[in-house]
């Protein structure tokens, strides 16, 4: 993709076209949306017009602005008079935090196990490979359901559980890349001059395979968002009074006939967010590491 190597006819194309070839409009839109919801979740406390748990029994099931409502409740209010926009902002933050933290956990587990397998080989590697196969073969949603119901649901446990999703893919990628990296001169040189294995893997190999790992993590995020919202939709994820996007849709299902706006905005946000992160993930993959698939 280096512009210097382009044939002379291509150089004449305007700067704008070159810009959009490197940054397709869909990717720009997706990045803009991600930046937007990231800002919303960072500044959630200032942006929320009301407290997300505040009841307003005089103003129940108020219609949103786009359905002949007033600006009092921009996106309407629900059965208990809670402001949908405020809950939406809170939910976006919750869902993003869960997706981000659990992807970090998955990456932590995956990278550690991948490095262990690559470093020790032998029976350690066989056990880790077995665990990877095991993870890939079990019905994760079903087991997650069972664990949540029987452990009683706390937010910490829920995030940890979501962090179990997808580590096996990162572990498999890390192992493959680390084994390849060990063959290369720089890792051997580092250990020759006396660097500890921790240093070799953490300070030398990790930065070199980071781009691929970032792509894998990015592609993991929409899956976690979908998993989290699915479980919350079933009432087995994030528990009230906390709220998440899936929670809001699950709650709004009861009012689909009378007040469809309760589930409309969280549903749209879920779709746009997973779509945006997937688009960016695919684009990153094509740019950084076309070999990944």
């Amino acid at each position, binding site marked *: 993709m280096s512009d210097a190597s382009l044939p002379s006819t291509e150089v004449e194309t305007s700067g704008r076209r070159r810009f959009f070839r490197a940054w397709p409009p869909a990717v720009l839109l997706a990045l803009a949306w991600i930046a937007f919801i990231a800002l919303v979740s960072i500044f959630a406390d200032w942006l929320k017009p009301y407290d997300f748990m505040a009841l307003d029994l005089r103003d129940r099931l108020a219609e949103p602005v786009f359905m002949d409502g007033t600006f009092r409740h921009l996106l309407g209010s629900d059965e208990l008079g809670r402001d949908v926009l405020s809950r939406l902002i809170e939910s976006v933050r919750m869902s993003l935090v869960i997706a981000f933290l659990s992807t970090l956990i998955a990456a932590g587990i995956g990278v550690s196990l991948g490095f262990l397998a690559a470093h020790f080989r032998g029976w350690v590697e066989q056990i880790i*490979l*077995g665990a990877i*196969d*095991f993870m*890939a*073969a*079990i*019905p994760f*949603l*079903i*087991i997650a*359901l*069972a*664990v*949540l*119901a*029987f*452990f*009683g649901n706390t937010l910490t446990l829920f995030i940890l559980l979501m962090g179990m999703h*997808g580590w096996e*893919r990162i572990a*498999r990628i890390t192992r493959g890349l680390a084994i390849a990296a060990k063959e290369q001169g720089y890792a051997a040189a580092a250990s020759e001059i006396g660097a500890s294995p921790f240093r070799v893997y953490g300070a030398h190999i990790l930065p070199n395979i980071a781009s691929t790992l970032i792509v894998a993590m990015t592609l993991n995020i*929409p*899956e976690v968002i*979908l998993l989290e*919202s*699915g479980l919350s*939709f*079933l009432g*087995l994820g994030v528990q009230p009074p906390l709220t998440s996007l*899936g929670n809001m*849709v*699950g709650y709004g*299902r009861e009012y*689909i*006939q009378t007040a*469809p706006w309760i*589930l409309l905005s969280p*549903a749209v946000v*879920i*779709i746009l967010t*997973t*779509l945006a992160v*997937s*688009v960016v993930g695919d684009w990153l993959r094509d740019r950084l590491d076309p070999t990944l*698939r």
Partner: protein
Amino acid sequence: MLGYIASRAFRALVTILLVLTFAFFILNATGDPAILILSADAPPEAIEAFREEWGLNAPLWKQYLGYLWNLAHGELGRSMRDGRDAWAVVSERIPVTLAITIPALIIKLVIGISAGIVAALWRDTWVDRLVMAFSVTGYTVPSFVLGLALMLVFAVQLGWLPAAGADSWRHAILPIITLGVAGAAVLARFTRSAMLEVLGQPFIRTGLAKGLVWRAVVIGHAFPNAAIPTLTIAGFMIGSLVAGAVVVESVFAWPGVGRLLVSAVGNRDLMVVQAILLLVTVTMVSANLIVDIVYGFVDPRLRTARGGPARGGT
């Protein structure tokens, strides 16, 4: 080939045993079923009687061995809620679930695979873009949102179909479409990338160079090679026939295995949850096993290679 099958079958058995063990200890370590079911303020005698009846006073490892022993004799225990045989409770739901998941599977396979092939053969045309747009949507729209959207349009607004329940075949249409569309999108994407990868291989060029027509090259050389990754995803879908509809069943109040699981989990009905876990694990693992064996036939290279084909994630 026999050795290959035997090693795969052994792995499958180990996986099933691991899931069962894992589930048993997780579920039993997380609270006293007697208190969960009878509530904490039940009279102590009642709790004691309950513990005695269900063998909860024995040490955990003894309970575990007892569980495995009963399992080996085909007994999955009784529902702690109504005392019925847990397997009977679960198995009467299986046909209900299959009534929507099998038609959905057919939709997925037919639409997904043909759309993926068409997109790959007409790469970078409007057909390809249409298929990919559909596929990305299928990836990113959660099934409960798709289900609710269909319900809103076809049941609430247009009134053509019933919104929820399972009283007639018309109730099955929306759940089937919801499941089918999402799966077809996933399968289309995988088939397309598998086809594209194969079409870029040298043996395709060789086939064309030796004078074969395009159609013969695609059917004779591209399809069999692209079938392998596609088979993995299809196998995964077959494995999830029994429990892949938890969310969709909930949306449409379809009384299948998935809804039973959600309610059993809510009721803390250990035995039913374990029976469902066993059922789901066995179907998934055997579907994977069958796929692995079919691989062995389709691709002779894999019979000797250790580790087998890389499983594509979703």
